[in-house]
């Protein structure tokens, strides 16, 4: 039940990690990530087995009540009439799909993501590779600074930047005007620019988080592989490009997928910016869902919209994963190198 950019929603893990984990351990096969062989080795079934079941119970009860129940409820709800509560089949879905505002919000987020996610991932990769190189001094200090925004709530980050991007409050925005380069103070929060202002904010929030993941991933690249690269006379730059980058491509795919999901779920930033930049309350799909449910009281339509957005997210993730898997062969080759 985390909010959109809550990083612990490590969604693609399910797709990426279990197989990889099995390969790392070398004990379980990929085909049976939840299989019968318990990794620690214990008495199968019997008394120990019941203890295991008991241990999972508190989670499973909470899961049934606060995850499964709302999930099933939203499906039932989406099939009912907003007026009478009677079963109406796909009526709400037809309504949701026919809503132009909803699609323009989805397309806006797709455009947003195409630019913002690309810039952020490239920046994170470059910074991580530099911090991992012998050219970097004060590596620890940089790593800490980049990671700081993770401690700042999304809404507070958006507020901070919203103040900083207001011409009334920020003298720096008047400089181009004073130099005669612009007809007035720059206003990054005006309607035409606010999407890019949001990119600046989201990039600020998540680049360091992604870089941290990449950097840890880089430190696990086997040193022998790097040493052999050096003996062959490869420069640091070509070691980074030809050895390190391919070794972390799974991680890059992983953080890109998290970012795509986060972009489609964007809520905090548009809500906060709307208070100051007034770009309307239909800016992102989640904002529309929120308003459908709580401003217009049409929970049935909101449920249908939520499900459609979830499906769009799953499809976008799957398409991205297929493309990178075919293009970069993420399936098996790297796994072999992991012990």
């Amino acid at each position, binding site marked *: 039940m985390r909010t959109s950019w809550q990083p612990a929603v490590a969604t693609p893990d399910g797709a990426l990690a279990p197989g990889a984990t099995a390969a790392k351990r070398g004990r379980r096969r990929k085909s049976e990530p939840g299989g019968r062989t318990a990794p620690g080795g214990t008495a199968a079934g019997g008394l120990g*087995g019941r203890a295991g079941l008991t241990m999972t119970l508190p989670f499973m009860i909470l899961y049934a009540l606060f995850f499964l129940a709302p999930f099933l409820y939203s499906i039932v709800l989406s099939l009912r009439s907003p007026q009478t509560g009677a079963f109406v089949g796909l009526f709400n879905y037809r309504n949701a799909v026919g809503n132009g505002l909803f699609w323009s919000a989805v397309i806006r987020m797709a455009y947003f993501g195409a630019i913002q996610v690309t810039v952020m991932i490239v920046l994170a990769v470059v910074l991580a590779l530099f911090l991992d190189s012998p050219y970097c001094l004060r590596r620890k200090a940089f790593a800490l600074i980049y990671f700081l925004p993770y401690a700042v709530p999304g809404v507070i980050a958006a507020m901070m930047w919203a103040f900083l991007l207001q011409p*009334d409050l920020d003298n720096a925005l008047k400089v181009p005007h004073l130099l005669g380069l612009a007809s007035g103070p720059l206003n990054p929060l005006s309607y035409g620019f606010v999407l890019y202002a949001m990119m600046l904010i989201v990039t600020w929030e998540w680049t360091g988080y992604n870089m941290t993941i990449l950097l*840890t991933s880089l430190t696990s690249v086997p040193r022998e592989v790097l040493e052999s690269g050096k003996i062959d006379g490869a420069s640091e730059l070509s070691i980074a490009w030809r050895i390190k980058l391919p070794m972390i491509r799974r991680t890059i795919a992983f953080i890109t997928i998290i970012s795509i999901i986060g972009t489609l779920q964007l*809520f905090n930033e548009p809500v906060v910016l709307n208070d100051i930049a007034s770009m309307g309350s239909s800016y992102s799909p989640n904002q529309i869902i929120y308003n459908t449910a709580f401003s217009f009281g049409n929970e049935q339509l909101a449920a249908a919209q939520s499900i459609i957005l979830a499906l769009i997210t799953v499809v976008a993730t799957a398409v991205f994963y297929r493309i990178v898997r075919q293009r970069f062969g993420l399936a098996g080759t790297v796994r072999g190198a992991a012990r």
Partner: protein
Amino acid sequence: MTAAGSVAGSAQTRRVTASAPGRDARRARAARRAKTAAGTTLAVIAAVYVLVPIYWLVMASAKNTPQLFSTSTFLPPSHLSWGENFRLLFTVDGGYFGFWILNSAIYALVTATLATAVSTLCGYGLAKYSFRGRRIVFAFVVGSLLVPTTALVVPLFLLEHDIHLINSYQGVILPLLVYPFGVYFMWLFSADAVPGALLDAARIDGAGEFKVFWKVSRPSLMPGMVTLFLLSFIGTWNNYFLPLVLLGTTTKFPLTVGLTAWASELNSPGAGQPLYPEVILGSLISVLPMLILFPFLQKYIARGLTFGAIVGE
């Protein structure tokens, strides 16, 4: 490889050749310095990008409303208004801010403690025992990692409304205890951290499974639990969407919802005196504890984030 020395200016110059060791060594040092300078420049620009808003927040929190609009953006004001702003922050609007801090602390502490306990037990149970239904539990955990959880907020609101959980502390905390990533993390962590032989030894001594867990496994699981606690704490402290939907009473708001409510009135005419200094100082206070603790916590947090991603390399 002596030919490498002749490729002047290329990356190959780092290699010292036998023909002209002095000159090439100098050239190598120069190339190294150039690369250090180029990389450091980029790294410093990125660091400035990260630090500027935080620095601005500290400066702006010392200004009163007229100073905010008249003094230089990035410089401290001639007289510091921290005391005045602090007093305003805790008294304005019925003194809600004190409630919000307390609420954020309650939500984050209780959620993190219980979510860690529940996830650890479940992850450990999955890792160390085979039992009927284990595959099903596993499928649920991994499957829910794939569901964008914002999709559940609307039905959760309605469900909590029906069972009278809405607008209560429990109503916010209980859904946050379902932390599939936490289970997944502790499942992997337990598999690595607790050797099966140790458990078997304890069992031979006649200890029951829960005693084995408490006496033998828990100490080994502690580092993982610390990581999970921090992730859950920060996630809850920073959460906005869920409490926004589930809470209606101002005195139950966490900081994120409260401060955003103040900020939404900044630009609406007729909402009274805009609370600029309060919102700014409030924002600073809401991030300060974590920023100060971050250098000590960073490595624990980073370990949790990277756990899922790293295993494939």
